[in-house]
């Protein structure tokens, strides 16, 4: 099954509530997939690069990291540890060196960008959200996922969202049937999936199309031609939020829009606590139809 939620705020005043709203939405979707959960959240854009990293042994792995990384890069960095994850702030232009250093140290890179932070772990949404303190996070938009695994193992790296480009992330309900073929095609283009998961291939696909100059709508539209299988995708970019369902559309989806926000849920239950939901425009996204919002 899997459960997806997404929230794109139109009203700036709600920004401090984003983490709390997304957390409540995701918890209602727990019984659609209790294996693992994750949230990507777009906070204030900052100068320099944000990089979210993960370790199964954070106490050891993150100890002394700030000093060691600053020494290697020859520039000051900050490391904000949140449970098994840490969000690094790096000067622009140091990404390649930082990646090499962090990977050699056995750390996993979950995502990079100027505003996106990404947190995912094995466990129930309520526990995962609590471990990272998602409720206290503000931002402009975010997407969340609770997973019932089908195509790859229940691991941190198999959890959604998948990020394969700066400030880009994707969550998926469904399963892809041509992901091995697409993995080869995308790898040849330089977009190499890091896991055996089908969804990561879809994330790489979107990243490759955006890199080729497509806008978010065009990239999402491309999934209808190039990806085979069942899917409802929700995608986040630095300033955008998009949704697309495959033509058969058996994976559920519902959307709500008010003057304050656009919301996505696998089920209406996810919206029940949102402010003004009783007066929201609520609809089911049409099959094979792209919806996206950008600011």
């Amino acid at each position, binding site marked *: 099954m899997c459960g997806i939620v997404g929230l794109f705020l139109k009203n700036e005043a709600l920004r401090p509530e984003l983490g709390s709203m997304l957390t409540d939405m995701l918890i*209602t979707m727990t019984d659609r997939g209790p294996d693992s959960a994750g949230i990507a959240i777009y906070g204030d854009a900052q100068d320099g690069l944000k990089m979210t990293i993960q370790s199964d042994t954070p106490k050891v792995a993150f100890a002394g990291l700030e000093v060691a990384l600053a020494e290697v890069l020859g520039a000051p960095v900050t490391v904000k540890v949140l449970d098994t994850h840490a969000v690094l702030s790096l000067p622009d232009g140091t990404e390649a060196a930082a990646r090499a250093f962090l990977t050699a140290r056995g750390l996993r890179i979950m995502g990079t960008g100027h505003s996106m932070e990404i947190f995912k772990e094995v466990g129930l949404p309520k526990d995962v959200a609590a471990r990272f303190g998602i409720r206290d996070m503000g931002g402009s938009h975010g997407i969340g996922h609770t997973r019932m695994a089908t195509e790859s193992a229940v691991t941190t790296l198999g959890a959604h969202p998948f990020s394969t480009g700066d400030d880009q992330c994707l969550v998926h309900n469904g399963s892809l049937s041509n992901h091995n073929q697409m993995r080869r095609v995308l790898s040849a283009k330089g977009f190499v999936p890091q896991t055996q998961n089908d969804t990561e291939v879809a994330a790489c696909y979107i990243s490759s199309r955006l890199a080729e100059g497509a806008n978010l709508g065009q990239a999402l539209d491309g999934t209808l031609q190039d990806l085979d299988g069942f899917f409802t995708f929700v995608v986040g970019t630095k300033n955008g939020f998009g949704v697309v369902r495959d*033509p058969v*559309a*058996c994976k*559920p989806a*519902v959307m709500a829009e008010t003057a304050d926000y656009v919301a996505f849920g696998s*089920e*209406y*239950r*996810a*919206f*029940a606590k949102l402010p003004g939901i009783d007066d929201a425009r*609520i*609809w*089911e996204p*049409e*099959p094979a139809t792209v919806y996206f919002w950008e600011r």
Partner: protein
Amino acid sequence: MQTIDMATTPLRELNAMLQAQAAKTNQTAWAIENPRGAHAVAVGLDAPIEVTVKGSTGYYCAGMNKQATVHVTGSAGPGVAENMMSGTVIIEGDASQYAGATGHGGLLVIKGNASSRCGISMKGINIVVYGNVGHMSAFMAQSGNLVVLGDAGDALGDSLYEAGLFVRGSVKSLGSDCIEKEMRPEHIAILTDLLARSGADAKPEEFKRYGSARKLYNFHVDHAGAY
């Protein structure tokens, strides 16, 4: 009027109360508050009671209904009135996919749009949709009637048996073995009755009728070599 608040009453307790109503109960009017998209609200009812669900429901609302009238003031999730046997289910808003699936009897009225696979494998239920229906509606529908005041999506009536399909708007495409058919007086009579019972503002003459070409589910001697 019995009022049950789902914010404080567990779903199973609610359904057990409703299912316990006898044929001659004097508690005939029920209101359910704060459904908040819950699954399986008011399922398996078997008494002539009237249940108003104030809000929107999740999966399988009013499934397996017998005798009861279930009225949802919001929208309904997937599988509303699935396998209904008799009674009436009214949705003021939209219905998600496979509304009225496999229904044997009764009347399902959707005042908004219905999504894909509306009336899939229907077996005698009557379904009236004020708005549009999505793709693959009335797939393998066996009997009963699907009335659509708006438009129908792709592959309407694919692999159809003997259900009657009536569409006022456009049909994006017909499914395999589904064809447009002549509207005869007996069909006008069926439509007149269903439109009146569902409170729909439409004239029977505005509809086109679709039905089975009967080439797929009947043995055809020309196909003997295929077996």
